[in-house]
C-alpha cells in the first residue's frame, strides 16, 4: 500500500475505532472480544483499503466486515462450545439499572448470532431493513423474518419489560 493510502487508512481507523468497538460489543457482549473483532475488521479493511476508500461509504464496508467476522467466529467449533460469560437465567429478574443492562445483554446473548446481529443493526445502529440486509449479505425478507423471530425470543426472555418500561 502506498504511504498516502496508508495514512488515509490510519486516519479512518482512528476516527471510527470507538464506534466500531461499540458495535462489536453490542454484537458479542464482551469488551475483550469486541477489541479482537474490531482489530480483525480493521486488518481486513487494510487489505481492501485501496478499493474501499474509493467507495461512497467505507463505513458500510467495515461494518459489514465486522458483522461477517462476528458471524464467522460464532460458526467455529470453539465459539460453539466456549462461552466467555455464564449462561443467563431463563427469566431475568427485574432489578436496578445495572441489572437491567445485564438482563438485556444476557437476553441478547441467548439469541442466535444472526438474530442478534439483526437486532443490533436495526434497533441499536438504526439501520433500515435494506441497509441491514446489505450489511448481512441476505435478503430483506430474511431480515424481516429474523427480526420477527428475535423479537419473539426477546418477548419470552424479557417478559417483565412488556408494556412496562418499553
Amino acid at each position, binding site marked *: 500500500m502506498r504511504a498516502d493510502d496508508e495514512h488515509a487508512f490510519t486516519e479512518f*481507523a482512528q476516527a471510527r475505532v470507538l464506534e466500531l468497538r461499540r458495535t462489536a460489543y453490542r454484537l458479542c457482549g464482551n469488551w475483550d472480544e469486541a477489541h479482537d473483532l474490531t482489530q480483525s475488521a480493521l486488518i481486513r479493511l487494510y487489505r481492501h483499503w485501496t478499493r474501499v476508500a474509493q467507495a461512497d461509504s467505507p463505513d458500510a464496508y467495515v461494518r459489514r466486515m465486522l458483522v461477517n467476522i462476528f458471524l464467522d467466529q460464532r460458526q467455529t467449533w470453539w465459539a460453539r462450545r466456549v462461552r466467555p460469560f455464564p449462561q443467563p437465567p431463563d427469566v431475568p429478574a427485574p432489578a436496578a439499572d445495572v441489572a437491567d*443492562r445485564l438482563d438485556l445483554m444476557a437476553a441478547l446473548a441467548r439469541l442466535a448470532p444472526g438474530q442478534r446481529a439483526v437486532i443490533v443493526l436495526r434497533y441499536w445502529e438504526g439501520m433500515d431493513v435494506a441497509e441491514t440486509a446489505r450489511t448481512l449479505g441476505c435478503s430483506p425478507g430474511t431480515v424481516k*423474518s429474523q427480526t420477527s423471530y428475535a*423479537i419473539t425470543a426477546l418477548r419470552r426472555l424479557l417478559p417483565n419489560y412488556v408494556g412496562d418500561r418499553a
Partner: protein
Amino acid sequence: MNDQQIAALLAAAPQEPEPPLPPGLLEGLVPAARRDVRRRRATAALCAVVALLLGAGALLIPAGNRDAVPARPSPGKAAGLPDLIAGYSPLTGSVSAAPPGRALLLYGYGNSEMLRTYQTLVLGADADVYRQLDAVPERTKPWLLSPDGRTIVLSEPDREVAEVRVVDLETGQTRQVPVPRPGGVVPLALSPDGNILAYSVVDLGPVAEEAARDAGDYVEWYATGHGELMLLDLRTGQATGTGVVPVSAAAFAPDGQRLVVQSELRTWLIGLDGQRQREVMVPQGYGITVHNAWSPSGLLLAVVPWRSEGIDSGRVYMFDSGTSGAVRTVSIAEPSALRGTADTETFLGWLSDTEVLGHAWDYGSDTGALSAVPLDGSPARVLSRFDDSYRCEFGMQRCVPYEISVAAGLLAGLGTRTAESADRGPWPVGFQIAALATVAVLAAVVWLVRRRVRRRRAGEAIS
C-alpha cells in the same frame, strides 16, 4: 413487544461505561495489517507452489525414476529380463517423449475379442522401463529390433514404401532411410551393430488392391514368394542388390560378415557383397527360423519346418505351423543332420549354443511366458511371465503379446531379475491434457462448492 417497543427498550438501556482502548491497538494496527498481508501473500505463493508441485507430480509420478536421458549401461553389462512383464496400461508414455534406452523386447500387446485394445511396446534391457512405440501405435509388424537393442526398423504391412523408418531408442527420434526401389518392404535381419539391414522388396503393382483390402501382413506374405533380398546401409543409405528372389527369412552371422538366407525351400549363405557363397543343405522340409537363426558362436543354425502354398506365380513360402512345432538345430559344418530339439511354440533367439529363448503359453499360470528352452529336449525353464490380470477391453480380457522381436545380441548371458515398479514414463499427451482439464474442473467445483457452503453457512448464521 413490537418494533417500537424493542427500539425503545434498546435505546433506554443504560449505557455501560466504555473501557479505554487496549494500549497499542491503534499503534500496532498498521504493522499487524502489514504482517497479515505478507502472511497471506506467502501462503498464497506457497499454495501455488504446492499446487504446481502436486500437478506436476500427478503427471510425472507414473514416470517413476525416469531420467531425462536414458542411462547408458556400462559396456558389457548383461541385459536383464523381469520375472513378470508388466500389464497393459494406457498411461504408458511414448518412446519419442521419454526414450527408454536400449531395449530387450519389442512387442504388440492387447486383445481384440470384442473391443480393440492394443499398444506397441518396448521393454528396456536394463530396467523395468516400458514405452509405447508411437511410430506404430496401432499395428504390429513389419518391424525389427536391432541385436544391440538400440534401434528399431519399421516398414508398412500393406502398401508400398519409398523408405524405411529407423527409431533410435536412445534419442526417441525417427529418421527415414530411402530405399532405392520403392515397393513392399519387409525387414528381415539387422547386422550385429545395427547398421546393415537385410530386407525383402517386392513390387506390389499387380496386387495393390488385394494388399490394401487384406487386414493381415499381406506384404510379408506375398514377399516370401516374390521379394528380392537387398542389403541397405542405414548410415549411408547405400543399397546392395543380391539377386536372391524370393526370400522369406535371413539372419546375420555373429561377425556380421555374411548372412544365411531362406529362398523358397532352400537355404543359402550370402556375402555382404550380395553374392551367394554356397547352399546350406539343411534337411529337406526345413528352413531357418524367420529371425535370429544364427547362433552366437556362429556354429549352429535354428531350423523349423517350411512349406509352400499356392501354385505357379502365386506360390509363397512359410513356416509350417501344421508340423509339430519343435525347433531343431543344425551345424554349419554338417547341416544335413538335425541335432538339438527345443520344444517351444515360438523361437525368439539364442541364449547360448545349448539353450534358446522361446515364447509359449504357460498353462500352469494361464499366461504367456518367455522360457529358456534347452536343446537337449529337457523341459523349458520359465524366465518371465506376462501379466495375467484382466486389463484389456476394459477389464474383460487378458492381454496377450504379439510378434515379439528380441535384441538377439543381448540374449547371451541374459539375467532374470525380480520385477520392480514399472517405469512407464510421462503420461501420453492426451491423458496429460485430460488430467489437467480434470484438475481444473475439480478445482472449479471445489471453489463453487466452498462458495456455496460459505453462503449457506452465512444464511444459516442469519437464520
